[in-house]
Structures are given as structure tokens and as C-alpha cells.
């Protein structure tokens, strides 16, 4: 990995897309503000942790779109040729995309989110006692870290699919999630011997009904932490590595 090349690639991406990123930031600010307005206006319908909900919708929605643009060059032959011909290794090109769409985006998103959240808090504090979102309350940061896994999946999709990569990747992801849900329920049923499992989360736990009560079965805390680290750090690394392998084999 050559740091000079990596810096040049980052510079290239930022220079070429600076207008788009600036406009995108404004749009994101507007969307988050609109979401806050909706949840505030219909606050009786949106009970609970609305700030967390807005944060996640914004993060995964905008992050997914942003990540999908990293290799949008592959949607057109001439652009794809241009990208592949830039004198840098596939690893450097992937690393630049991960740094921008994974890490830099998250930092920028946090800035934009807290700006809107700050305004929301300012306007609602007196009447409803709203405080800014605390990422470290109730382990919410684990959900935020799941963004890296999502980033890895979308990046892989953008290299794998040529046209409409974001939509196709989301469709595949949806199908996989549905399959995983049923497969996990089935597997949990076999392992635990409980026939009426209602829902389950892979690598986390499941829920079933017993004498009219919902029973939640979770992994022991230490194993749950390992599972969380696996899903938020190891799995993204695996997806990023597959993206790199796929990029090396990319033909246009």
C-alpha cells in the first residue's frame, strides 16, 4: 500500500465530487430536519426513541447511497476503463473508497446529524425535555457500528453489479435477510426444541411465546460481545476483502 497513491486517490475523489458532496450534505441536512419535523408533528404516533430512529434511517439511507457512488464508474464502460487505468493498485483504490464511504462519511454524518438534532433539541427541550442523542446509551453504538457491515455489502455490490448496483444490492440483501430469518428460526427450533419461535436475530438471540408471554433468549453477555465484534468488525473486513478480490478481477 503506497500512501502517496492513496492520498492522490482521495484527492481525486474529493476534487471530482466536491460539488456533489456539498449539495448532498445540504440535502441530508434538509432530510434529517424533515424527519425530525415529521416525528415531532406526529409525536403521538412516534413513541420511543425517535432520535435513534432518525439517526439510523439517515445513516443507512444516505450512507448506502454515498457508498454506492464510490465505484459508480463501472456503470459506464468509458468511466470504468478510466478508473481501472489509474496507476494505483486495487487495494489502494478499495482503501480510498472505504476511508471515504466508511469512516469519513460517518464523521461527516455525525456532524450533520448533531446539527439537526441540536436544532430539534433546542426547539423541543423546554416543552418535552428532549436531550441530544447519546450514542453510548443502551449500547446504541453497536447499531451504528453495523454501518461498516452495510458499507462492505454495498461496496461489494457496486463492484459486482454493473447497472443499478445499489438497487440490486439492496434487493439481494433483502432476500438474504428474509432467508436468514427463516433459516435462523428453523435452526433455533432444532437446537432448542422450541416449536413456536416467532423471531430471531442471527448471532444474537430469539423470541418465542410461552403461555401467552413473550420470552426473549439472548446470548450470554461475553459471547454476545464477541458476536457483536464479529458482525461489526470481522464481517466488514471479510466483505471489504471480497470487494478487493472482485475489483482485481473486474473487466470492462
Amino acid at each position, binding site marked *: 500500500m503506497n500512501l502517496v497513491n492513496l492520498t492522490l486517490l482521495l484527492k481525486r475523489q474529493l476534487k471530482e465530487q466536491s460539488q456533489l458532496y456539498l449539495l448532498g450534505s445540504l440535502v441530508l441536512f434538509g432530510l434529517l430536519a424533515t424527519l425530525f419535523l415529521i416525528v415531532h408533528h406526529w409525536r403521538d404516533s412516534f413513541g420511543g426513541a425517535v432520535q435513534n430512529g432518525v439517526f439510523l434511517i439517515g445513516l443507512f439511507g444516505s450512507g448506502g447511497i454515498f457508498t454506492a457512488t464510490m465505484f459508480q464508474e463501472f456503470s459506464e464502460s468509458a468511466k470504468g*476503463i*478510466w478508473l*481501472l487505468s489509474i*496507476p*494505483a493498485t486495487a487495494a489502494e483504490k478499495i482503501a480510498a473508497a472505504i476511508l471515504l464511504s466508511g469512516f469519513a462519511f460517518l464523521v461527516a454524518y455525525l456532524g450533520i446529524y448533531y446539527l439537526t438534532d441540536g436544532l430539534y433539541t433546542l426547539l423541543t427541550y423546554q416543552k418535552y425535555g428532549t436531550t441530544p442523542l447519546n450514542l453510548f446509551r443502551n449500547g446504541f453504538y453497536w447499531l451504528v457500528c453495523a454501518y461498516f457491515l452495510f458499507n462492505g455489502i454495498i461496496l461489494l455490490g457496486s463492484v459486482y453489479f454493473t447497472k443499478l448496483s445499489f438497487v440490486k444490492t439492496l434487493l439481494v440483501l433483502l432476500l438474504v435477510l428474509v432467508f436468514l430469518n427463516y433459516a435462523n428460526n428453523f435452526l433455533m427450533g432444532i437446537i432448542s426444541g422450541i416449536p413456536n419461535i416467532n423471531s430471531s436475530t442471527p448471532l444474537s438471540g430469539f423470541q418465542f411465546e410461552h403461555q401467552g408471554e413473550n420470552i426473549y433468549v439472548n446470548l450470554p453477555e461475553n459471547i454476545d460481545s464477541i458476536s457483536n465484534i464479529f458482525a461489526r468488525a470481522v464481517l466488514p473486513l471479510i466483505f471489504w476483502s471480497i470487494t478487493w478480490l472482485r475489483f482485481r478481477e473486474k473487466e470492462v
Partner: protein
Amino acid sequence: MIQLNNFCYRYSRNQELFRGLNLTLQSGQIYGLLGKNGAGKSTLIKNIGGLLFPTTGQVQVFGQESRLRQVNFLKDIFFIPEECYLPNLTVKEFIQVYAPFYPNFDLTQYQSYLDLFGIAPSRKLRSLSYGQKKKTLIGFALATNTRVLILDEPTNGLDIPAKGIFRNMIKDAFKPDRLVIISSHQVRDLDELISSLIILDQGKVLLHAAKDEILQRLIFGISPASLPETAVLYQEKSPAGWPYIAKNTSGQKTYLDMELLFNALLENNAALQPMFTTNPKIPAYELS
């Protein structure tokens, strides 16, 4: 030097384009790669550029395997596709962003091209006309001073004066350590520019010879009337008369009519192809 060893390429299991092709291209040459649409020109040059991978066999550019797309390989090759792409930058920003990737980039050289085209550094690349974009990109490619330059249909979309400028740019920037491949089906655009010819048809190399070698062996002429078949290797009717190709027994040097040669090879390959060796003699390219 570019070397293709036992090169095979398949679009799919049932669709084969190249089978067992061996080809060597030398530095100091401007190759004209000719062929009809679908002959395999773009596939061949994309394989050389590392943008497509051979099904079997090897493609090497200066000893580096194309498909690996190593940084040193990418620093030494510039590929301009038929539909060229330029990013959303000004000319000045474009240089700032992309020139550092190429260690031999010559800013003065590029500046001279921009002056020639009358393009200000503050101009947005996307605001340029198609021809201006193409010239800007060709100028950048030449200024990178990569040892290999590959151009796919470079004259498509260029007006007549622009075609002349293009030919002069290539000739002026040519150096003995450089290897240029120009793929085109517009053979007349390459006149006077190329030093060697490669003619492809259906994935096969019909001809691979230096221009000088072709003119040593063949004469090209035009007759007001059709000549006896025994006197010529090939002839066809045209509005100006009957252009023909015959064996060069007198040693005279004529003008190489590439279009005629191209048609002759497609129609009467058996008579012409045995006249050329598989390893052509490569003359030193003369800068005029």
C-alpha cells in the same frame, strides 16, 4: 514490447474470438490495427491494456502481465477508448489531480497542446465539445509519456482539421522507445501515420507487416480498365477506375492503399498472405 503468447479469448463457452494467437509488437512502431466491426480489435487492445483477461494464454507488456494491472504497468500504458471520459474538473484541476500518477508527465508538453487547441486551463472539461475533449485527452495521454499508447477509434467524431491535428500530435510526440497502437476501421485516417499494419478478421491476424515490407513486396496502382487476373493479385472497381495490387517485381515504391489492401485480404487472403512472413522485419520509424 508487447507479447501475446497462445492467446485465447472467449466471450462465453460457445463464442470464441481468439484461439492460440501469438503476436509480438515492438517499440519504435506505430501500429495500425485494422478490421471490420466485430473483428476483435477492441477485445485485443483491451486485453493488452489489462481491461479484459485472456481465457487462456498470456499478454505481456514490457514483461509485465497485463491482467495483473500492477502499478508500474499502469504507469507505462495509456488507453483511450472510443467513447472517452473526462471527469468533472477544469483543465487545471485535471492536471493537478491526474498528472502526479504519471512519473514522466511533461507539463510543458501538455501546455503546448492546450495552446494549440486554444483551450484555457480554467475551462471545465465537460463544457468542451466532443472533438476538444478527445484532443485534450490525447494530449494528456501523450504528455504522460507512457511507453505504450493505445487508441481505440481515435478519429471517430473528429472533424477534418482535427484529424490532421491528431496525426501531427502523434507524429511529433513519437519516440523510438514508444509503442503506439491505433485501432480503427477508418483506414484512410491512418495514412502517413502508421509504420506497421495488423489486419484482423474474425479473431485471426490476416496480416502483420511493416509498411516498408508491404511496399517491397506489393505495388499499388490504378488502371483505367480491368486488368487480366494473371497480372494482378487483386483489383476492384471504383469511381476513378480499377485500383489493383500486384507483385512488386520491379522494386518500385508506390503509395500504400490500405483500404485496397484491407479489402484484398478479406476477399483474396490466400493469394496475399503467403507473401508475408509471420515475423515481420521492423524498420526504424522515420520522423518526418
